[in-house]
């Protein structure tokens, strides 16, 4: 988009240059003039002009004008310091304080309070009001995480606007009116919504305080440390508030290209995991069946000995929160020092993943091709492209759960610009409400849907589907604008996307794909070589086993050692408990972990893992932005930087990396990943840089270089489950079979370790639920809350029934990541039997 032309205006007699159309408050900053504001917050959308703090005089307009809502024009003459302006601004401060308690000494906001600052800078100094102030019961819980003090509230509506116009949860409302107005919820219900913590930061006074932070620190006790949240792929930029080497709070560190300045509550309150007293802080070695603390030298030696013995019969599983450096070094140890090709970072696969035809063991080139095509720089959309695209397709994922910040970003595009949204998923999505078109396919049929969509878009080589599937694909295709669409997608089998991308001309500016990986740093780990089918830079390597292959091989004894880096496959990977058995059989399990969990229970050696707050290194955002993790707190106890530990382990195994610092580790990556060439911490800086925008992007592998091409695109559309449907199958057949449901799984936002490990979040931990369409529930004689057993092929999961209108009949959904076998049922036809009444 071209930048708006610059104009010149006169502010207090000084010429100021600013972009045409900027709001006067922002334009004035270019001339170092500060105009005080309360209600203005551009992140919340259009200005509302409610507080009247920002009034200024503009030549030619008799009334004072609100600078927050006045766009600048060339030649505008503005006065911010005249008597009239000063009186009006001082009057607003006086008005605001008429009912404000001024209890700063006991107020959390004190010292970082815009009301204090503005009152000092622009207020009258003393109030003429002698009348009693307005009183409310205070403070009272607005939610389990936030307290509200309505006496301090200055009714700037930021929190309410956030709830209504950003998160669109619509829970916060203004109640009563006039001077009795207050912020609350319908019927006083707790405000429970995944982004609600943002209102604490938005509040310009101490009216909304974080329960976890209340009375913990004063601004002069604390330091800010900027880093990146690695609890999900959104990779929001954050500031840690650190007091006495402890994290007391997490704030947003606005980065419009990443997060728009918002955080989800997981990121905001999940810091408690890093501060948990249950963390492993020393290396542990199993002796006599028990894990016992050991020194680093001893632990490293034990690990090296075991790995040396297993040699090429070793596999590495790298968890999504690992940095690029952790992943790179881990795969290097396994590939180079041990000569094993088995490196995996995808809990349940990724693009071009094992189809039935290759069984995950086919030619690596075939799988790499999908990756190379779909992640190619020319098809890559950036997060900010969502602010420009005329249409957006959300495919196979619900961003609220998989990449929460994108949920807000997509809502913004629809709300503020009227972008056309299409949603095609198996499970009903929270974005459905704002979508122009929605389509539901049966769980596991994403590949079939995508092929049908490609055909409707006119891509060559695809056959139009019949029936409901074809009609759905046609509707979705109709909502998409060629050359101006961003597709946000996730899914194991989406090769048809290549055809869609071509037909939709996604290579054009502002269009493209954003793939939501399963792990926070899924993209980075893939690019530094944590895949069984590709090495660093997606280079051609000997093909290794994928996750389920590794599990089977461990179980069968053909693999003997497992290196788990920040990974708990028992909780997070398909197969769940089956991993326990597999790991139990291994001769050596080396786990890098923050906590004792199901997987460390099988470990022989445990290295304590760093939390994201302690880490130094880089991660790669799903849109290709490399971002820096910077240590905000010291490592607790004996915890050491993982790059250092892995470099030492490599050396013990004869792989000298020469890595002696985090920048060294990045340099090593850059020397092996051609399209990261030359990248450094300095270049990444505070806001990151998309590698696609660097010159080295031209080293992205070319499709032609990549093994055999799959010449018949999209013919294979089967789910990972039992029966392969005919081409053109609507995926709706399961509903014809009495009592049989095809199961889909999804990773609930809160089905994560951080929920269990952060006291503030624990109340959000989900329990396994089977979501059913009302028709199926009725047919199966089930009601909401009934306990059921969901079975297929000897795998069974217990769940409570939850009935949803928008679930497609014949489909049922379970939550992944709860440590049960739900993920193994993905795409399967299951039987359901009642196991208990509602509680």
């Amino acid at each position: 988009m071209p930048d708006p032309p610059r104009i010149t205006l006169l502010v207090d007699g000084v010429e100021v240059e600013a972009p045409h159309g900027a709001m006067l408050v922002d334009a004035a900053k270019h001339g170092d003039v500060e105009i005080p504001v309360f209600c203005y917050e551009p992140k919340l959308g259009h200005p509302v002009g409610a507080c009247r703090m920002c009034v200024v005089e503009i030549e030619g307009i008799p009334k004072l004008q609100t600078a927050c809502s006045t766009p600048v024009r060339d030649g505008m003459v503005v006065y911010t310091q005249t008597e009239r302006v000063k009186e009006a601004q001082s009057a607003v401060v006086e008005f605001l304080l008429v009912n404000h308690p001024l209890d700063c000494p006991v107020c959390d906001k004190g010292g970082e309070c815009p009301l204090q600052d503005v009152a000092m800078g622009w207020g009258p100094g003393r109030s003429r009001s002698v009348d009693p102030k307005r009183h409310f019961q205070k403070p009272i819980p607005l939610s389990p995480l936030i307290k509200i003090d309505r006496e301090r509230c200055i009714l700037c509506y930021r929190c309410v606007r956030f709830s209504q116009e950003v998160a669109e949860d619509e829970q916060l409302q203004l109640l009563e009116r006039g001077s009795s107005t207050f912020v609350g919820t319908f019927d006083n219900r707790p405000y429970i919504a995944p982004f609600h913590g943002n209102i604490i930061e938005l509040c310009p006074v101490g009216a909304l305080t974080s329960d976890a932070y209340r009375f913990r620190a004063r601004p002069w006790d604390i330091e800010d440390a900027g880093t990146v949240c690695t609890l999900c792929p959104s990779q929001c930029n954050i500031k840690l508030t650190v007091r006495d080497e402890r994290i007391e709070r997490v704030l947003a560190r606005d980065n419009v290209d990443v997060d728009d300045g918002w955080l989800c509550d997981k990121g905001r309150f999940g810091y408690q995991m890093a501060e948990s007293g249950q963390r492993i802080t020393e290396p542990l070695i199993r002796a006599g069946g028990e894990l016992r603390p050991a020194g680093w030298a001893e632990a490293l030696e034990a690990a090296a000995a075991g790995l040396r013995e297993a040699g090429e019969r070793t596999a590495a599983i790298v968890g999504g929160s690992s940095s690029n450096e952790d992943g790179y070094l881990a795969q290097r140890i396994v590939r180079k020092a041990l000569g094993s090709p088995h490196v995996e970072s995808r809990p349940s696969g990724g693009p071009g993943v094992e189809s039935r035809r290759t069984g995950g063991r086919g030619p690596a080139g075939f799988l790499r091709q999908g990756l190379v095509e779909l992640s190619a720089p020319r098809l890559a959309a950036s997060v900010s492209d969502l602010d420009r695209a005329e249409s957006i397709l959300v495919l196979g994922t619900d961003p609220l759960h998989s990449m929460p910040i994108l949920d807000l970003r997509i809502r913004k595009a629809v709300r503020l610009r009227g972008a056309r949204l299409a949603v095609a998923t198996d499970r009903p999505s929270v974005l459905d409400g704002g979508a122009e078109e929605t389509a539901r396919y049966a769980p596991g049929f994403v590949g079939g849907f995508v092929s049908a969509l490609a055909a409707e878009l006119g891509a060559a080589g695809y056959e139009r589907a019949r029936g409901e599937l074809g009609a759905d694909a046609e509707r979705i295709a109709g909502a998409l604008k060629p050359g101006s669409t961003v597709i946000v997608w996730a899914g194991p089998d989406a090769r048809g996307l290549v055809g869609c991308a071509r037909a939709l001309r996604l290579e054009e500016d502002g269009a493209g794909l954003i793939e939501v990986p399963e792990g926070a740093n899924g993209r980075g780990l893939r690019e530094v070589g944590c895949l069984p089918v590709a090495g660093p830079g997606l280079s051609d390597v000997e093909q290794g086993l994928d996750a389920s292959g590794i599990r089977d091989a461990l179980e069968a004894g053909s693999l003997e050692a497992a290196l788990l880096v920040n990974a708990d496959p028992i909780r997070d990977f398909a197969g769940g408990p089956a991993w326990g058995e597999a790991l139990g059989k291994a001769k050596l399990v080396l786990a890098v972990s923050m906590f004792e969990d199901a997987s460390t229970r099988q470990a022989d050696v445990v290295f304590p893992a760093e939390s994201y707050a302690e880490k130094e290194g880089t991660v790669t955002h799903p849109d290709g932005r490399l971002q820096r993790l910077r240590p905000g707190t010291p490592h607790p106890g004996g915890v050491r930087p993982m790059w250092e530990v892995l470099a030492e382990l490599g050396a013990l195994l004869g792989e000298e990396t020469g890595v002696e610092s985090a920048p060294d580790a990045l340099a090593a990556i850059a020397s092996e990943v051609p399209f990261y060439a030359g990248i450094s911490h300095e270049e990444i800086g505070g806001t990151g840089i998309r590698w696609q925008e660097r010159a080295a992007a031209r080293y992205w592998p070319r499709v032609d270089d990549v093994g055999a091409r799959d010449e018949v695109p999209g013919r294979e559309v089967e789910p990972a489950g039992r029966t392969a449907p005919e081409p053109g199958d609507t995926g709706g057949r399961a509903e014809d079979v009495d009592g049989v449901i095809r199961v889909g799984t999804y990773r609930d936002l809160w089905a994560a370790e951080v929920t269990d490990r952060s006291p503030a979040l624990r109340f959000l931990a989900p329990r396994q639920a089977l979501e059913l369409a009302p028709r199926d529930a009725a047919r199966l004689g089930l009601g909401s809350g009934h306990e059921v057993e969901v079975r297929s092929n000897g795998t069974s999961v217990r769940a409570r029934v939850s009935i949803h209108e928008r679930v497609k009949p014949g489909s049922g959904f379970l939550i992944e990541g709860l440590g049960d076998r739900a993920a193994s049922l993905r795409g399967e036809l299951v039987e359901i039997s009642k196991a208990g009444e509602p509680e």
Partner: protein
Amino acid sequence: MPETRMLYRRVDEPGLASIETYRRRGGYRSLTRTVKEIEPEELLTTLQDSGLRGRGGAGFSMGKKASFLPRGDTDKFLCCNADESEPGAFKDRELMQKNPHQLIEGVAIAAIAAGAGWAFIFIRGEYAEVADILEGAVAEAYGAGFLGADILGSGQRVELVVHRGAGAYICGEETALLDSLEGKRGNPRLKPPFPAIQGLYGGPTLINNVETLSNVPHIVANGADWFKGFGTEQSPGTKVVSVSGCVQRPGNYEIELGIPSRELIYGLAGGPPEGREVKAWFPGGSSAPVLTAAELDLPYSFEALADAGSMLGSGSIIVADDQVSIPALALRTARFYHHESCGKCTPCREGTNWTVKMLERVLSREATPMDLDIIASVQDNIIGHCLCVLGDSMAMPVSSMVKKFRPEFEEYIRRVASDSPGLGSDGAAGLHALTGTSSLAPASGPHA
């Protein structure tokens, strides 16, 4: 001087509210001509040439506002403002109750002029009976083909819905009205964008008062020049004026704009009861700065009242005679606006609240002379600084009362010092006499 009846012609004829009678008296001829013979642009020109000014408060040219709506076939809307909640105003009620078809015809013509396919009459919730009458009339008009997808087979479409408000004065403010109509909390919106560009559901919207729109069929029937033959150059036409308070014959009077105000108050409404004098009067509803007896000869026109520092507003006169305590009247006025403030912007929300507290202290003789200065200064801090004009609507009359009748306020303060019996501390007492026909809110409201 007699009334000049245009909108009120035959207003007391039984059955005028029915479509038969209305048509028998020439009703719907203007609409018929509009759809059959007149191009929308020509219609706009006529309305603009007539000089018809809005009767809802601001007095903006109706035709000009209609011409601000962008042309082309985006969805456009017309909203008739029938929220009439300003203390002292009760003219729209009578217009709708007795001659609903005159309004419906005006709405339909104005909608066609503005290119609006959907029209709404947003009627004050308490006017339940009137809303029933209107709904009946709308049904009749649909039945006779004057409303709907294809008016009289012309292909013109105007759908009309009567929407009942939920009882907030602020919903008469045009943008709050739009939010309320959309199902939201009725709070004013920031302008610009103006409703003519971005109004109901984001579409261009024309908003006019009941009386404004009731004028439209007459202008179409008789032409702009005919209309300009009434009233003054800047205030053409007639005006229905609600006169209430201390007068012997309170009620609605339709007059030619520009006649002396004294004619209205004394001639038509009979003046204060025998032996009493006018002390102060609101010329344009309770939000207009008060005028004194010395100003009774001002012509009743937009321009003359504005020149005198007040306004014609909705055209409602409230008279206070020499028995009325001005401080009590000030408190009564302030309480109304405090109660009705939506709370969105700081000066109005806090300023009305603070003013009420201070005036209460004046009335209970707990104030000092300094408080009078603070009251005056707080009004100055409100005026011109709010998001909508409700804040000004309290501050302007209160400020005018403190300025013009300061000695009366000082009386309350001096009496404290001498500890002599006061003037009666119940602010409402002096006003009960005033409120016979006006809609001043009860002093014991939940926020009083």
